[in-house]
């Protein structure tokens, strides 16, 4: 079955587990590349991080390792060598045999990878059964051993469970156990921890790391999250617009990034230990067919010269084992991570409280989800509500925004108590507190034009009408870095980041004093997040807007907020100035949260 032909030219122990050479995946029938010239070597026992923003082609590379491309695209040329066999030139039967057994895949959403109607135990042994590996009892033993390896119970009760009876982290670890069961040589992980809480993520990553090292499995870890990569990868490949633009050992890449794109990405990432002035990358990642000639990053690059637009750069050596696809690596100078460092907000700064939440209890039906929460927000201050899923952070923000009515306690706005639902509040209150939603794909009406969306609050609150309103819309769009060109467009023509800017512009159109931001960057790429944070900081300083910032990302809190409220299970665990809480946490929960939060510093 597992007929690995012994490699005679190089000793098996030294050869790479898998090497990718000249890989090109293109769109069917149009000759447009999704990814091209992918060159990658995976050594046994090594974790290689493949990082890129959405649309960079990272998942395409990941699945190409298994000889698979999604519908509408095909693997045009290249080699994926597994020992001395080329996965891409094997027949489909051989490739089928290979998948799962020698190259395993862990998908992003484990819930969709496990069959909800089959018990965990059965699913685990399915592959072994299919390949006729071992006897019934042996398979059962291996399944149990596999579960033990990933730190899950392996008694009969657990094996009898259905996937819905497990938590998200458990499901992901079952998927990991399943991938490791046939002892693959190569493992492709496609964002396996996206959507998990930080503590669960920490656990899954640890498990994965240990298994890869102990079984000498070469892992390709595909993700958009540089902070995760910084914690687990040995080597990192950065992708942009279908090319690997930089490839090198982790330390080299994070300490001395050579490619301007890598540098820009790192500039956009918040740190846990230090506040930073985040910056985004102008423009947006071009999709296949819209990528520029020459260096694909040159139109967004701060260091671009005319020569960059002429020809696609080769991979140049920066240091041994560290290459970058940029013709100016020797000219653009060194990069210092500390350039973006800024000061934490002074904890002793005087505060002029504008919004105070007192003894807040929130209910869904008869179930109490938030218990006795107190905090306040001062003028032109940013307060962060932080917690894992189910901590009640969004629920609290919805109460403040008047979107949830079933609560007791008091929310005071400039000393006046706010009514529960938005409809019972005065126009004045509704105007001055604006809510921005997490998902810009859901929060903007797809049937309206951008102009209509942004203009509506002005009409509603009698701020401006007609010609004047249109001028103000253009002004606002400019403030959120969108041109007047988008006025007549519907939202489906915009990217996620652009949509979120429109949502921010809509909130600003009401000229609010308080912005309630519910995870507004979590659906966005880091470079876009950087730009949005930059924008909000500017608004806070120039307009004196106060912000209630809901997030699960502690590093982001460090860079954006002055005060932080840590929530768990609907209760306030710890609160205070960001510097104090994050540098000298007093509660175990906070310490654990901080320890598990991935960060690049």
């Amino acid at each position, binding site marked *: 079955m597992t007929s690995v032909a012994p490699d005679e030219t190089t000793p098996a122990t030294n050869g790479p587990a898998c090497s990718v050479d000249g890989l090109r995946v293109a*769109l*069917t*029938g*149009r000759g447009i590349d999704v990814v091209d010239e992918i060159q990658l070597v995976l050594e046994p026992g090594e974790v290689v991080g493949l990082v890129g923003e959405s649309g960079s082609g990272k998942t395409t590379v990941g699945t190409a390792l298994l000889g698979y491309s*999604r*519908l*509408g*695209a095909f693997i045009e040329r290249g080699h994926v060598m597994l020992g001395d066999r080329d996965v891409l030139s094997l027949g489909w039967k051989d490739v089928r045999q290979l998948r799962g057994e020698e190259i395993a895949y862990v998908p992003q959403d484990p819930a969709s990878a496990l069959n909800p109607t089959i018990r965990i135990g059965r699913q685990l042994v399915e592959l072994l059964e299919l390949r006729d590996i071992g006897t019934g009892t042996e398979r059962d033993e291996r399944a149990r051993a596999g579960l033990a390896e990933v730190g899950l119970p392996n008694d009969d009760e657990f094996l009898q469970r259905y996937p819905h009876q497990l938590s998200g982290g458990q499901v992901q670890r079952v998927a990991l156990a399943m991938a490791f069961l046939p002892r693959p040589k190569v493992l492709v992980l496609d964002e396996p921890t996206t959507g998990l809480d930080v503590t669960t993520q920490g656990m899954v990553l640890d498990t994965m790391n240990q298994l890869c090292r102990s079984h000498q499995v070469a892992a390709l870890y595909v993700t958009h999250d540089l902070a995760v990569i910084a914690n687990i990868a040995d080597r990192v490949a950065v992708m942009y617009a279908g090319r690997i633009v930089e490839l090198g050992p982790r330390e080299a890449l994070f300490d001395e990034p050579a490619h301007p794109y890598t540098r820009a990405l790192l500039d956009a990432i918040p740190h846990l230990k230090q506040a930073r002035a985040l910056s985004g990358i102008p423009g947006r990642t071009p*999709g*296949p067919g819209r990528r520029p000639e020459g260096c694909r990053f040159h139109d967004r690059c701060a260091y671009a010269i005319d020569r960059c637009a002429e020809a696609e750069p080769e991979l140049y050596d920066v240091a041994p084992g560290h290459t970058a696809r940029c013709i100016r690596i020797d000219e653009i100078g060194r990069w210092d991570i500390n350039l973006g460092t800024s000061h934490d907000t002074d904890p002793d700064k005087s505060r002029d409280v504008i919004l105070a939440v007192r003894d807040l209890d929130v209910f869904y039906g008869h179930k109490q989800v938030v218990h006795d929460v107190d905090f306040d927000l001062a003028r032109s201050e940013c307060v962060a509500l932080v917690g894992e899923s189910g901590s009640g952070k969004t629920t609290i923000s919805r109460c403040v*925004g*008047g*979107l949830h009515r079933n609560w007791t306690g008091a929310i005071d706005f400039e000393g006046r108590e706010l009514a529960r639902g*938005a*409809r019972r*509040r005065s*126009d004045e209150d*509704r105007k001055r507190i*604006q*809510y921005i*939603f*997490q*998902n810009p794909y*859901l*929060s*903007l*009406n*797809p*049937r*309206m034009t951008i102009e209509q969306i942004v203009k*509506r*609050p002005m009409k*509603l609150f009698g701020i401006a009408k007609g010609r004047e309103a249109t001028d103000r819309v253009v002004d606002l769009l400019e403030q959120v870095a969108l041109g007047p060109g988008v006025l007549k467009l519907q939202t*489906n023509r915009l990217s996620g980041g652009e949509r979120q800017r429109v949502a921010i512009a*809509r909130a600003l159109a*009401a000229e609010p004093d308080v912005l309630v931001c519910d995870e507004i960057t979590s659906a966005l790429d880091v470079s876009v997040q950087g730009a949005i944070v930059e924008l909000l900081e500017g608004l806070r300083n120039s307009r004196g807007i106060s912000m209630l910032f809901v997030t699960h990302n502690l590093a982001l809190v460090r860079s954006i907020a002055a005060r932080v409220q840590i929530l768990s299970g609907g209760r306030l665990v710890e609160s205070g100035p960001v510097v104090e809480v994050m540098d000298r946490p007093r509660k175990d929960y906070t310490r654990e949260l901080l320890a598990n939060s991935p960060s690049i510093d």
Partner: protein
Amino acid sequence: MSVLTTTSVRRVTRQKRLFVGMIITAVVVALAIVGPWIAPYGENEIVGKPFTHSGSFLGTDYLGQDVLTRVLAGGRSILVISVLATLLGMVGGILIGVVAAYVGGWFDEVVMRLNDVALAFPQILLALLVLSSVEQPKWWMIVLLVGASHAPRVARLARGVALGLVSRDFVASAEALGESRIRVVIAEVLPNMNAPLLAEAGLRLTYSIGMVAGLGFLGFSTDPGAADWGLMINENRLGLLVLPWGVLAPVIVIGVFTIGTNLMADGITQLAEKGDDS
């Protein structure tokens, strides 16, 4: 972006379906509208013996009237009544469904359970019950009855679609801004229901025609002497073996028209799906 080439192929077939449906519908409607003027004989003119080949090429009916003339003249009432009934049913159903979804809670529960009761009642039975109890059915009665029988079905669909929309953040956002409830329904929810509702309207129109023609066949048409596709089938069924055109001609037009509206409804649905994944 994912399936660029296949979509371009699909786009053509999708639009073709809509296009063909529209053409068929338009032709039948045009025929029904201008029919009376281009008809070779008068609507009630006796042109020869019953069920013979006198008159135009489709022969004569049970009274010796020209079948082609009757077909051309008999479409107007059935189409007008069907369209009006569909409109009525759609407006009524959308109103019930969207309001139930938006208000939610016990109101939704009560309205939709009552709606289920209405759904359980056979469509045609209600119409027959009412029509048989009046001396002479008026055209508006048929509109009302057919419309009323559609409303609960439309309401179910409208509620289903609206439920998915009222929980979206853009509705919450409008609520937080303090938009009036009517405006939330009209400006935020309804425009996003266009596609499924248009498709439903096409389907409802198909059913309306069937039902109005059926009522005509059973003798409940507004004017017993006037030409009417449904009534014609009934009148001429005795001569089916002698001269089938008296029955076949109206059956074919009704059939073709339903196919046309159905294709249109399908086309709209597919177009909407395409719009969603772009």
